[in-house]
């Protein structure tokens, strides 16, 4: 928790400084907790810094940060709580949202087992867990919407544990 607070406090400053300075490139923002599995890849970041004022900000508002920060939070079976390891991902999104003023849509999903409309409820429950976490970190409710697709939009087809685990998720989508 202490670590999380530090990140929450330090990162906005870095990001803000970067915005003001018009930082270019994709690798100028230090990643507080590099995660190899979700790295956007070096190919993008090796390119020239073509960030050119605010006009281009829409496309790459936070450069490498956007590419590296996971947009999907996974959930355990029959669970509707963000795993402690994923809390940091949500925190970093809250910073992005607060700093950019963006709105996000939280898309909740469930695995395929059981009844479809009930699974809509389970997907919504997951989306709300992420929403509450964002709100606790100061994101206004007006900048968050939720939609639950239940089991209707699986990330992975298949009827095994691996597919179920991949499908119990919330996807954070930036709207503007």
């Amino acid at each position: 928790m202490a670590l999380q607070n530090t990140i929450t406090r330090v990162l906005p400053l870095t990001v803000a400084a970067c915005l003001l300075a018009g930082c270019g490139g994709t690798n100028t923002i230090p990643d507080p907790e590099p995660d190899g599995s979700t790295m956007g890849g070096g190919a993008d970041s090796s390119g020239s810094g073509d960030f050119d004022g605010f006009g281009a900000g829409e496309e790459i508002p936070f450069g490498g940060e956007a590419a590296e920060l996971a947009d999907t939070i996974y959930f355990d079976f029959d669970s509707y709580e963000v795993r402690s390891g994923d809390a940091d991902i949500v925190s970093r999104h809250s910073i992005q949202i607060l700093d950019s003023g963006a709105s996000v849509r939280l898309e909740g999903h469930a695995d395929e087992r059981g009844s479809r409309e009930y699974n809509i409820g389970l997907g919504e429950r997951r989306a709300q867990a992420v929403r509450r976490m964002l709100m606790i970190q100061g994101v206004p409710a007006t900048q968050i919407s939720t939609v639950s697709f239940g089991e209707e939009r699986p990330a992975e087809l298949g009827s095994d544990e691996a597919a179920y685990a991949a499908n119990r998720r919330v996807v954070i989508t930036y709207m503007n």
Partner: protein
Amino acid sequence: MKISMLSRTFLLVALAGLAGLAGQAAAELRVEITEWNIEPAPVAVVPFGWEGSAAAAPLDVSGVIAADLRRSGRFAPMDSDDMLSRPTRGADMDFDDWRILKVEAVVIGRVEQTGDNAYSVQFQLFDPFRGTQLVGYRMPASRGTLRRVAHRAADMIYEELTGIKGVFATRVAYVTAEARGNGQLYRLIVADQDGENEHTILESADPIMSPAWSPDSRQLAYVSFEGSRSSIWVQTLRTGNRLRVSSEPGVNGAPAFSPDGRQLVLTLGGADGNLDIYVMDLATRNKRRLTTHRAIDTEGSWSPDGRYIYFNSDRAGGPQIYRVPVSGGSPERVTFEGGYNARPRLSPDGKKLAVVHNDRGNFRIAVLDLERDNQLVVVSAGRQDESPSFAPNSDTLIYATRQSRDGVLETVTADGLIRQRLESRGGDVREPVWSPFPRY
């Protein structure tokens, strides 16, 4: 008793070939009898006579009737090659021919052309052992209505023989999904219950869910995710006209028409995502909240008398069925057996309740006998069965099951004795809902 699937399938395909016109597009759903636990009664549907200008009648009416009876699982129409005589008029009936063959009922009839696009279908049903006529009718038809008239004849024959109203003239709505480019293409389809006359009434790149018939069969309510948000629509089948009746923040789900068609029960989640049951007046769009619990309350369904809403709630931990008076009040728990009972659907006679039930790790359809201490019987045998919907005669259910990856439809009698698979041409078929009886 299990019957060899192959031979039954073959018989049925042969019949479908007889019934279908050459060149006609194949129906999405073909019926393949999978399993039954009662012996179907031997009957005979004698090829109908034809009097008209063309070489043959525009539709093999007797073929449609025989296919309907066979599909019910209760009857085994004999091969016409094995018939000793093929009468088309009552006067030509020799009951001995049928007693020898131990046929319990004989259907004969004729199609006569009475005008340019006018026909008369006549049929008679006989009991060869008593040597009596059980029912006989003559019905007018056009080319466009011949198939429906054939189904009506099958309905009358079926009811006469079983005492159960036939559902051969009803329809089924369902949703299909298939890969299209990077995403999926979802379709809402309405077809005759035998898979013929299939019409796509909505196509979307976003999910379509939870179709529900209006009591007059003229409209479908459903959930659409167009624009990446859920909303509830009511679409008129004849005109294709569609109205968005609910698009609140968060979940808009699980619509179902009241028995009088004036109200819709639905689930709303609101911005905070607390799914509760609401009743909407369709004329004014005013909504009234029926449940307030912080648990998931969803999948509302009307009792046929319009007094109760049955719904699914996980307020006790796992999903279970509750009911609440439409006028308001405290919900009362209905299911207690097992840890997962969802998607309640009342039979139209109000005597049975179908649910999705977790049966030792498998999601299956179960039927509760509301008149006998809510005794629960599992009637399906898949791993991932869902979306039970009663036929309007309360005797049979349709639901979705899995065949390898894809959803396919099955029907089963409410006692679980006759189960049949409707074979799909492809794609993932789900959420079948059986129409009410047609109004003639």
